[in-house]
């Protein structure tokens, strides 16, 4: 019985997403692009790099990449924190 409900829920969600996507999203290949045209045009001169994506990642939106490097640092510290061998210093508890 649960499988049937599951399939119905799945179909409803996919139908909603597909219908939303077919009617409202811009046609594939013709996006509005005023910011990106400015970046493509000015990237070489402002950030002196050929790879426009690298200039976006490290210069125009560098703060995101700082956040992302922090996320990697957090995940690594978190994993090593959880996998530490627990030798708890039992004084008086």
């Amino acid at each position, binding site marked *: 019985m649960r499988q049937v409900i599951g399939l119905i829920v799945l179909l409803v969600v996919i139908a909603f997403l597909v219908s939303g996507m077919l009617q409202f999203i811009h046609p594939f290949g013709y996006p509005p692009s005023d910011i990106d045209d*400015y970046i493509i045009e000015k990237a070489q001169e402002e950030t002196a790099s050929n790879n426009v994506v690298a200039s976006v990642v490290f210069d125009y939106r560098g703060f995101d990449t700082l956040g992302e490097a922090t996320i990697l640092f*957090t995940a690594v510290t*978190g994993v090593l*924190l959880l996998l*530490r061998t*627990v030798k708890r210093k039992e004084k008086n508890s």
Partner: protein
Amino acid sequence: MDKLLTYSPILIIAIPLAVAFLIPLISRAGGKARNALVIASLAFVEFLVIILARDIYLNGIHIYTLGAIAPDLALPGGVMVPIRIILEVDAMSIFMGIIWATVSLTAAIYSLSHMARETGQTRFYTLSLLMVAGCFGMIFTGDLFNLFVFLEITSISGAALIAFRTRFADAVEGGFKYIVISAVAGLMFLFGVGLLYAQYNSLNIGFLASVMQYSMLDKIALTLFLMSLTIKTGMVPLHMWYPDSYSVAPANITAMLVITSHACMYAVFRVCFSLYGITLGVAALGWIVVIIGLLTMFVGVTMAVFQTDVMRFMSYHAISQMGYMWLGVGVGLAVLGNPEALATYGRDAIGGGIFHILNHAMYKPLLFLTAGALYHRTATRDLNKMGGLGHNMKFTLILYIIGTLSIAGIPPLNGFASKFLIYESVYQFNPVLAVVAMLVSIITLASFTKAFQSAFTGPQLPEYKDVKEVPKPMLIGMGILAAGIIFTSIFPGLVLEHIVYPATDALINQAAYVNGIMGGIP
């Protein structure tokens, strides 16, 4: 000094980050140096937040564009679209900044002794500093994708800290639930950001608000934003993970996590008020938020009545108190449309809701820290096993009483001030809401007296005869919060006038937020 002022938004985020990266290297010089560095950096951040707050209350919105030729150059030459990431700090964000700076400083001081006997402390302090930086980033940023990145930093560091006591199975399960919920909520938020980027090719909140046309996609994006962010604040239909995660974490981490839920609520307000503003069908949206607020209030407190675990008991109360905030701001949102209703009680409703965020951000961490103090001495969270601890834990007893009276809304203390403001304004909107809110407040008082009685009063149990008071740093931490509560109780008008109402006006006034970015161009 003014140079420090122009850089203060970015310094508040970057200093905890830099110190967090530094701690693994410093910790080789011993625990003392590391703890001193943590407290010093958080104190300096608190100082920066205070001078930034003073400047914002004097001359309005504060902008910092990252990587531009001049820090306040929002629009590069010849283009009407903000290209880079802009930190926009208005009265509402600095209001959350003050709360977050104070609570994270107290939690750090508290953890000096609460964590003294645990292994892996270096990584613990690194993660808590990263969480501080993450939440500051969430509060100050004016960019949607940046909000998602810092939301993820806060969630990942929070999940790792919840599962800190890996020797207990329920801690790890609480952490797992938190990270699964945060991952799904973050990806839904990202889907919404993608939808907005598909239409307007920009990620800046101020610019999007100025070009918003409320198409069908924008409504889908709004539902995605609301759904994902309210999951993180523990709204009723999806709140089952909240007590599981928040009750197993160390007490000071739970205190900080409650404020991160407030930051998610702040993000909901930023999306509703600043991004979508008035022209969207606000009455319907306001009513949804009000109904969810009522539901959260009621279910939270009824579930809390028969809890035996003291931390689960407090977590359910945290959910129900969130309901008050949703109720207050939901009423304000519902009447955002007609200005005369807004003037009479709408502004007070939002003011009450935001004032309740401030009060809740003081007494709820205090209650969690007192529960942590009980755990620190009795190594158990079960109320049935505790008893008669009031005899030898005097200070904790007093602090617990202050927190309890404040959460129940007893007149002299600050809980009453904000709840009364909410009752008064919500009553004019619809009397039934105020009646339910009062009923919930009574049940809160009843359940807290029960918990107080089972933990503190009663005969002194034999095994807790030699229990000493908690060490100094924990008392200092709790003392700062209690002092904050007492100050707000004695001068509610002062706090309301100088901190809460500027934040309310900043939230209501969407045009100011947009002009901050677009530089006055309509």
